């Protein structure tokens, strides 16, 4: 089920009540585990089997890793986990993509091949829980952690509903220890958790779905050829939409966990105030970028084996990171662009190692980063390369047959909301939400909270799925 639904409101209220009953800690954990399975199977019940397979395989793989005496046996257990997890991910997420590309390759070689039609349905959140369970066996393999002591704690780590389908991608060392001791939110944790959930849902339901998504759809999903204003407005709208959608999900998830007495890590640190792309990736989808760094970039050699190997590892990581987002070459292009940006930044940083930007240069570099990030969003949002080039040509002002697409309301709402997001990110650049809330007047917090909640109800969200569910 999605957070922005009546079903979730009823579900969460019930989970909260049972979690706060005077029951033994084990039973309260069983409640959370069963609730998490209900949460997942509310989309498509049979897919919960995949979740169980992933859970069981990694549990036994980690046990095997610890008991193995020879290094080759440890490798074998690790490979079992990687192959089982990536195999399922590969089949469900990339099966059709691989078949289509194989057929295209044969066609290019002059061999006619038409693969049988496979209607493979993507299990929601498979990319997220696959990475979470993989980090469990990989941490044990890399001798960073020992396996969980009981299956319930481990299964709950994999399945815990706030992070299950769209992150933040949790590491076992972040969550399993929290299940070892009884936890119940304090009254203030519960209230602040509810406030975070309100903020997250406001981002999703009001900003992303109600105001920004329609603007992007008018240009990206239509046949009309956009000019500069429409192409930029739609792309900026999407940049705001994807941030509000995904950061909104993360904030809601963090709030939901806090209401239950658990802590989850930040997934975003005001990324549209990033200066440079290494800064951007330390602010955007942090739990994914750090996962890719720890389990892909560093094992590929990281930056410790010479410049050439560093750039190769960087590009490989970003290209695969792009592919993780979706089975399409447009996502690979998006990842490739970010890889190229990071590589160029690395060159520039080594050339101008002694230069320290002043305040004005910092803002200029920040705006340049934001502009270049927006260009990458074109490939992320466009369903085909043809569409991406059409929008990019529009952004460059070179679409000769362009006609105005968006009415003034859409242009103004994008300017106000996206402008507001960027300014807010710059204001919050070196702050946390908590530090700002702590300094605010209680009446102001209550007023803002009520306004956000009212806007959510008045916006009447259609229960649209979060963008990252498809990944």
């Amino acid at each position, binding site marked *: *089920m*999605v957070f922005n*639904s*009546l079903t*979730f409101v*009823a579900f969460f209220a019930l989970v909260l009540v049972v979690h706060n009953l005077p029951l033994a800690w084990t039973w309260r954990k069983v409640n959370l585990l069963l609730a998490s399975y209900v949460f997942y*199977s*509310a*989309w*498509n019940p049979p897919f919960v089997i995949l979740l169980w397979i992933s859970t069981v395989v990694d549990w036994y793989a980690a046990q095997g890793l610890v008991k193995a005496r020879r290094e080759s046996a440890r490798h074998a257990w690790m490979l079992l986990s990687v192959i089982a997890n990536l195999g399922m991910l590969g089949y469900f997420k990339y099966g059709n993509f691989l078949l289509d590309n194989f057929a295209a390759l044969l066609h290019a070689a002059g061999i006619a091949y038409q693969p049988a039609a496979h209607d493979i349905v993507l299990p929601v959140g498979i990319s997220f829980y696959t990475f979470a369970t993989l980090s469990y066996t990989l*941490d044990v393999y890399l*001798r*960073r*952690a020992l396996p*969980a002591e009981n299956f319930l704690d481990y299964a709950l780590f994999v399945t815990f509903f706030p992070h299950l389908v769209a992150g933040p991608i949790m590491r076992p*060392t*972040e969550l399993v220890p*929290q299940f070892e001791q009884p936890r119940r939110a304090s009254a*203030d*944790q519960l*209230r*602040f958790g509810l406030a975070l959930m309100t903020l997250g849902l406001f981002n999703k339901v009001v900003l992303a779905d*109600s105001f920004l998504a329609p603007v992007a759809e008018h240009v990206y999903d239509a046949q009309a050829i956009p000019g500069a204003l429409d192409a930029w407005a739609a792309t900026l709208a999407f940049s705001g939409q994807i941030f509000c959608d995904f950061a909104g999900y993360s904030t809601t998830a963090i709030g939901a966990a806090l209401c239950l007495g658990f802590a*989850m*890590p*930040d997934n975003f640190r005001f990324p549209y105030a990033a200066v440079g792309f290494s800064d951007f990736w*330390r*602010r955007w989808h*942090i739990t994914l970028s*750090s*996962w890719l760094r*720890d389990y892909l970039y*560093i094992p590929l050699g990281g930056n410790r084996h010479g410049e050439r190997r560093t750039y190769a590892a960087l590009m490989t990581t970003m290209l695969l990171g792009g592919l993780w987002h979706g089975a399409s070459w447009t996502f690979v292009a998006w990842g490739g662009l970010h890889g190229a940006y990071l590589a160029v930044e690395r060159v520039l940083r080594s050339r101008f190692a002694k230069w320290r930007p002043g305040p004005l240069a910092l803002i200029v570099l920040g705006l340049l980063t934001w502009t270049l990030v927006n260009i990458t969003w074109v490939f992320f949002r466009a369903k085909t390369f043809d569409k991406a080039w059409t929008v990019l040509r529009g952004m460059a002002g070179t679409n000769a047959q362009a*006609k*105005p*697409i968006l*009415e*003034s*309301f859409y*242009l*103004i*709402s994008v300017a106000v909301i996206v402008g507001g997001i960027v300014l807010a990110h710059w204001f919050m650049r*070196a*702050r946390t939400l*908590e*530090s700002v809330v*702590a300094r*605010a007047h*209680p009446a102001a*917090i*209550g*007023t803002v*909270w*009520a306004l956000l909640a009212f*806007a959510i109800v*008045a*916006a*009447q969200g*259609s*229960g649209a799925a979060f963008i990252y569910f498809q990944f």
Partner: protein
Amino acid sequence: MDMRRHDVSPEDQARYLRRGDYARVTAADRPGVAQPVPEREVPTQPWGKVLLGACVLFALLLGGWEWHWRAFGVRPAYRNDSGLWSIQRARIDNGEGNATVLIGSSRMFMDLQLDVWQKFDGERPIQLAFEGTTPVPFLEDLAADPKFTGRLLVGVAPELFFSGYGFHKDAIAFYHKESPSQRVGQWLSMHLIEPFWAFDDRDFALATVLERQPWWPDRPGKPNRLHVRRLNISGPDRATQLWDKVADDPQYQALARRIWTQDFEPSPDDPPPEKVAKTRDEQIDHVVKAVATLRARGVKVLFVRPPSAGPYLAYDDRLFPRAQAWDVLLAKSGVPGIYFSDYPELSDFDPPEWSHLKLADARKFTAALHAIVVRDYWKPDAPK
């Protein structure tokens, strides 16, 4: 979990931490180590009072919003969306496949009154028509469902039927893929929200209301367009009528007419005539195939062209003249049809905004239509 193995030691902190100007340390600042349990502080505030104040203000805002819409003439009704439609569509697959089913666009939706039909027929039809939407994909969906063996009344609004336009086409996919979560949400909404709150209608959603404000300037080359307003109210089984505000409030009626008028004049954005004709022929071909499948299964199909008037009728006739569209549809499909202007008892109406009948007229229309149907096409003693 052995915490000793994944706690970040002070040495590790010094070695790995690249805090920079980030206010809070995250995994981004700790490369290549086990990540510790996150810390989430709660800002110091009187949270009990804050929550109470927020709840009171929220209640006031919500109460004010509800009062505003009730003062505008709105009463609670059921949201006519894919979830509500799916409940009716499911009846066919859950033991009522032999029923009389209505598909079509808004005229079939609002002009045919289920209780009147039930009074004369003894059976309440299943209402599957959708406003702003061609029924052709719905016809194909029913053709592909072997459980449907009943009778089918297909409303034809030429502008939509022959153009293939479908505002609610997604409802079919929604029904076939509806998740347990969506079904539960629909039930909750129909029992806790929709019967009690007038503002809960997509026409009064915040973004929609803002977009409709008159203060937005016209963009050169893209003037602001008026979008269709709320015209109907629905019950839990999609029994639907024209909203009485359309009939009784002259200002609202004038607005509704102004909205239709935007489409009546030819525009440079209109598709070329040859494309319009091609689309029309494609739609008819789809219908012919679907009808053949349905009739092979014993389903009785009947087309109905409900009334329109004034400039809307002129627009319908200009866009898809009867001889080139309706007559061809009947001839190619071999299905009989009832065209309102062929029957005085179906023509003597004055739709308030030229397209839909007010409730009293809709009831008369339904009674007259039912009489024609049973007299000329679906005789009561004939097997289904």
